[in-house]
């Protein structure tokens, strides 16, 4: 059975589980994104239109229709982090990855994104990589963290 079929079976067959399904599917893949084929399969399973599935997938920031790297690096851009130097963090991450916001590194390992507030303002500046949030960062620390991901592959 395919990864998607397994995920669909985890919840009742009811379209209110669409977002849960899309999130789980992304988590299960090496490249966190939803493909056109998957949209068609999900739509067929729930008996809804593919447009309905892709409109939901494009509405939410954590879901992506574009291929992304294995690790999505989200740098918080909102005021509490900004007040604590998030612009330097963003520059350091750009330098460490060698790519700009919205881009994926050539080796397909990282995609750089900006994010709205992560709710971690007591540890600002904060960065979320995959499903882990790092806090109280400076340029040096965030570069070391990225190196760690690179070495671990």
């Amino acid at each position, binding site marked *: 059975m395919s990864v998607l079929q397994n995920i669909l079976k985890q919840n009742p067959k009811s*379209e*209110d*589980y*669409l*977002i*849960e399904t*899309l*999130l789980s599917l992304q988590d299960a893949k090496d490249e966190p994104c939803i493909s056109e084929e998957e949209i068609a399969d999900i739509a067929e399973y729930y008996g809804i239109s593919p447009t309905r599935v892709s*409109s*939901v997938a494009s*509405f*939410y*920031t*954590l*879901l992506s229709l574009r291929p992304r790297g294995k690790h999505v690096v989200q740098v918080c*851009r*909102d*005021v*509490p982090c*900004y*007040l*604590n130097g998030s612009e330097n963090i963003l520059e350091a991450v750009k330098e460490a990855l060698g790519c700009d916001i919205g881009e994926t590194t050539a080796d397909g390992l990282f995609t750089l994104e900006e*994010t*709205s*507030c*992560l*709710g*971690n*303002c*007591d*540890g*600002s500046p904060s960065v*979320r990589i995959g*499903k*882990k*949030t790092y806090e109280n960062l400076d340029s040096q620390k965030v570069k070391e963290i990225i190196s760690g991901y690179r070495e671990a592959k």
Partner: protein
Amino acid sequence: MEKRILTARFGKIDPLSIDDYIKNGGYEALEAAVKMESDTIIDEIETAKLRGRGGAAFPTFIKLKALVGEKEKTRYIVCNADEGEPGNFKDRHLMENDPHQMIEGMIISAYTTKAKKGYIYIRGEYDHSIAVVREALAQAREKGYLGKNILGAGFDFDIEIRSGAGAYVCGEEFALIESIEGKSGRSRPKPPFPTTAGVFMKPTMLNNVETFANIPHILEMGGKAYAKIGTESSKGTKLISLSGNIANRGVFEVPFGVSVKDAIAKLGRGVADGRKLKMVQLSGASGPILPPEKIDVPIDFDHDIGAGAIIVMDERTDVVDILLRHAEFFEHESCGKCTPCREGNLHLVRLLRKVQAGSATADDLRVMENLADVMINVSLCGLGQSAPIPLATALDGFGDQIRDRLAQTETKENA
């Protein structure tokens, strides 16, 4: 200055151990509640004058009463844990340090309203909160606080977690409800309110994490004793989130009435690195920006405290930078359903960029003021209605600094 009720167990219990919670008085309020009449519970919450802690300050007992009065018997209890307003992080602390009091408050609400199903909608970025609450729910189920015939009192109730997926607007009640239904998070016109037609168009009581977490404490101490804490308009305690250029960032619990100024000076230990205070923003990205001489105001529902964020900004901060950053946040987070919010935020960003670049005119400023007025008055939901508040209040407190940034050109007559 602090008064720890909701945060009393923080650091003292293992949040992943229901036994720790029970040993420290947990689920005693539920045990007592199931021996009470529904009306008596509602009376206690009314006497306590509990109001919503997510920012809207709506009296909780009215929602409970409304649900009980509905003909429709399928009812839902929904907890809003989609904390996404910049500067707010107290719900994360509540869920990660003491998750069961929120769950207990939901179960008591379910018993009171005969709802059989609940949802906790947690923002997708709160990976750890989701893990802790999932474990807490499993333990509550195992102990018989959730499931069939709870405590032998003949009522069934269970709770499901729904994960957000990165949309600030889903903290708005109807956007959240749409999201639970598996749709894009776009608000609905009101009325009908969620208590009449919420999740799947059924009566729904939707509250913030902190609101639910207050309910067991109210039943434990009694509504009367609870109402002795706080001020005339605002009873009980408030969790505040201190952030920005402040020495001691974090979540603190204070009785309503403590002043913003004192909270910053004493709990936050003042501005970081001995710098001078430039401005304070209350409630988060959508709240008022105040100059230092206006922060000696009480933390209460009459002073725009919202969900309790206090963002401190020091002398290095540029008010236009901050306004632009907030405007970009709202432009990105607007759901796009209603025109004033979708277009208004777009134009606020465009015009604030002009101000920042020094190319805006006095006419641009007038357009911004008009836009703000329209957005505040006719946007469909709270997002668009509150997005221009920082601008409107900054024009009061820092108007000169903003006008100084305008281009030194004559304004065109009919622009």
